């Protein structure tokens, strides 16, 4: 099935998210879409899938113009979308999520889950997906959840599959698996759209590349024609430095000291198992590891939002194991949480309000019981601009921002104070290359100013580029140390340690 978008324009009030976009999507081909945060990629794909109605322009399927009145229409026409934020019901099983809306039924409206399971297994086999139809979504790692989304659209016999930043939350291994699936889909004659901020991925998998900037297509090319540096420049409109510039390593005294730390999950299983390490001033320590090996719990415990079952955390020599998150915040902790939507922001608050969520009580922003909104707004505007949060105004609610801009807002808030310890979990998730460059430079700046910086990321390249020392977590334990006093940094060795190999 071939699709053409002709002159699509989509506005949100004053904001023009897409203006006069033309795009061709062909069967058996992967179309790569690049663009800055807020360029309008997600919006365009939501128009294509029927979730948004375009203000101008038309969608043409195999030569015939069509009109979608709702998301149901898109899927009926054979267009399936895997959203940036998954659309899965966490408490349902895989099979229930897959068949939702198009269930096979028996007598008395009864759900025929047996047939559903069988159909899921068939799709599994055809595309090599390997998903247990009876597993509960909330128990599955993101990589598998994503496959469920793929099964969902395939089950509805979609010929066009749209992937909005599918790799943002995947581990390197999962990305490799995902690309296998993409190739299988392509070989089966599906048309695919692939949105990403990772240039090497698009060079690897796309057959054709379109670059979007400020709602317009600014370029089209084939992957062989351009290097990643050229693509980055095309996207951002200025030269981008893809390397991290780092001053020589000169660590100061120990700031954060973790001893025998043990953390339990809600069901009392071990998340972090007897972990000890320390972070010094002027030092970046990276924690590498496949997601689900305890990093999330570790970060939450350090930030003071997860109960510690055993061991101690000390800061500047003081035991802070039981102090509250706010007390730590006042000591100069900054925390960029892993899941920004769940733990970082209130989505229907404005940018200004979100900017002071963790410091509203500060004298700068409030007098007695009343807020000093002028001060808040001034501060928010300054940092929104510095971190290039693309928004019509700081009074826009956060759910109206693009995914990447929401992330930038969180980072801006955490970096807008005089901090001592920076705990950053996936600080650049979902960001475009220009923003990544900026945030990396800010992290390095914090380090050089005397901060201790702890970075958690499943993006190995990022950890290696930023860190002075790298600790690898596996099954809740620190299993290897690289750099500084440990073994020399070697990407392959780190990868092996992450997979649990004993070195």
């Amino acid at each position, binding site marked *: 099935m071939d699709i053409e978008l002709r002159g699509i324009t989509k506005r949100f009030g004053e904001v023009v998210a897409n203006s006069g976009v033309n795009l061709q999507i062909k069967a058996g081909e992967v179309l790569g879409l690049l663009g800055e945060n807020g360029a309008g990629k997600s919006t365009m794909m939501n128009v294509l899938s029927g979730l948004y109605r375009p203000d101008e322009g038309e969608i043409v399927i195999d030569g015939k113009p069509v009109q979608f009145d709702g998301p149901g229409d898109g899927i009926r026409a054979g267009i399936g979308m895997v959203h940036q934020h998954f659309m899965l019901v966490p408490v349902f099983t895989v099979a229930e999520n897959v068949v939702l809306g198009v269930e096979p039924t028996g007598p008395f409206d009864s759900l025929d889950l047996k047939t559903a399971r069988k159909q899921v297994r068939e799709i599994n086999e055809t595309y090599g997906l390997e998903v247990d139809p009876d597993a509960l979504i909330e128990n599955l790692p993101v990589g598998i959840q994503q496959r469920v989304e793929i099964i969902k659209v395939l089950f509805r016999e979609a010929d066009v599959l749209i992937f909005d930043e599918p790799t943002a939350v995947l581990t390197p291994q999962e990305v490799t698996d995902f690309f296998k699936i993409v190739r299988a889909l392509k070989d089966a004659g599906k048309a695919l759209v692939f949105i990403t901020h990772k240039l090497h991925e698009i060079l690897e998998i796309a057959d054709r590349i379109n670059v979007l900037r400020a709602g317009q297509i600014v370029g089209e090319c084939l992957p062989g024609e351009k290097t990643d540096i050229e693509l980055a420049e095309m996207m951002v409109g200025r030269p981008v430095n893809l390397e991290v510039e780092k001053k020589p390593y000169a660590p100061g005294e120990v700031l954060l000291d973790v001893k025998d730390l043990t953390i339990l999950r809600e069901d*009392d299983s*071990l998340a972090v198992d007897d972990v000890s390490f320390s972070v010094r001033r002027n030092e970046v320590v990276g924690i590498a590891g496949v997601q689900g090996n305890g990093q999330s719990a570790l970060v939450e415990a350090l930030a003071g939002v997860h109960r510690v079952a*055993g061991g101690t955390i000390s800061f500047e020599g003081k035991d802070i194991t039981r102090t509250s998150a706010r007390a730590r915040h006042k000591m100069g902790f900054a925390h960029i949480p892993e899941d920004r939507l769940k733990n970082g922001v209130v989505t229907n608050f404005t940018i200004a309000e979100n900017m002071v969520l963790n410091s509203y009580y500060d004298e700068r922003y409030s007098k007695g019981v009343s807020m000093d909104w002028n001060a808040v707004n001034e501060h928010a505007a300054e940092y929104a601009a510095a971190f290039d949060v693309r928004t019509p105004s700081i009074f826009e609610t956060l759910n109206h921002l693009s995914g990447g801009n929401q992330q930038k807002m969180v980072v801006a808030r955490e970096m807008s104070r005089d901090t001592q310890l920076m705990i950053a979990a996936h600080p650049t998730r979902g960001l475009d290359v220009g923003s990544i460059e900026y945030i990396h430079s800010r992290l390095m700046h914090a380090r050089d100013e005397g901060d201790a910086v702890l970075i958690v990321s499943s993006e190995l390249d990022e950890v290696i580029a930023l860190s002075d020392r790298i600790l690898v977590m596996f099954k809740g334990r620190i299993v290897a140390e690289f750099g500084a006093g440990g073994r020399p940094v070697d990407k392959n060795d780190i990868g092996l340690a992450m997979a649990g190999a004993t070195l």
Partner: protein
Amino acid sequence: MAMDAVASPSSNRKLDTSALRQSKITGAILLFLALITALIFAQVEGGDAVFRLSRPTDTWALPNLVVPAGPFNWVAVAILTFLGVRQWMSKTGKGASLALGLGFAIFIAAFLVWATAGKAFSLTGMLQATMVRAVPIAMGGLAGVLSERVAVVNIGIEGILLSGAFTGALVGSLLGNWIGLIAAILVGGMFGFILAALVVTYRVDQIIAGVVINLFVLGLTSYVSSQVFSEYRFLNNAPVFRAINIPILSDIPVIGPMFFQQNIFVYGALIMVAAATYYLFYTKHGLHARSVGEHPQAADTLGINVYRVRYVHVIMGGMVAGFGGAFLTLGLVGRFDDNMTNGRGFIGLAAMIFGRWHPVGALMAALIFGFADSLQQKMALLQTPIPSEFLAMAPYIATIVVVAGIVGRSRMPAADGKPYIKE
């Protein structure tokens, strides 16, 4: 593949696990119960407690259960102490809720034996009363389940129950009990529709909309009952549905009177709970409903009409509440009294929470409440030294304890209470 690495804490390390914490608390509660049992319930001067398990008229009569009060309660103390110490010392923290449930059952048995010592007490009669008291609460709870499963919080259930009771009495007096019942259900459905329109279409705050319904119904029915019913008594004198004995089943001792010697309201309620369970968890439309309560946006992207699903279920919930309210008039006394629901709708909502948003759970919770409620009534008759005001508090305390202690943390539908705004 990134699977969660799961390991269990090695036993030689001392860790602050939540199971251990819970176990300590449970142990403390059990020891406290043992203390009360020893200091009060075991201090009886001889005397047997006689529990009647059947009535003289029953086909298969069971002999009376005769319990020597003192010895029985000392055994209860011993068991409670054993359970308590075991939980307190436990290294694994396992079995806390089972021990707590068992402990409460023993405690209540000891209490009953103490209160009945030297007297006789009809267990069957109390169980039958339990069922009767549970029905309106269970229906309130089921109404709550239906609407909260699609993420609409329905505080108005109290008012809808009251409207059902009122309509049942008024229409029943004029046109007979069957028409009265149907009218009560329709009026309940109408309030469901009004609530849905307010919160789904106009996005009025769900709590406020519910409170408005409660105040409106209370005001209107109180006015009519004091101004009109007092003048024209024939308007408030409805025929009551009689009990129908189910052949054979109704002759089973203890169970028979409780479940099978009741009127159509009790049977209707039990059938509705079963039907709702099947509907919500085993049918296509039930799956749609639950998806709307958990993740409306996902449902929407799959072509499920979120608004329509919410309307339908809130209206169904209203009808169930209307039915439950009619029971108070058409199933019991035949006349309407000012504010006669007296908070049963709210207790129904509590039953829904304790029942973890499951129809059967809501029924169970309603039965516990009904049991405690009929127990306190009987106790008042047995003339125990406990002041009646304290006895009247028992049902509420029992509900809280059961919920907090045994049911534990439960999870509501993820989108509960949140309006859905289409893009």
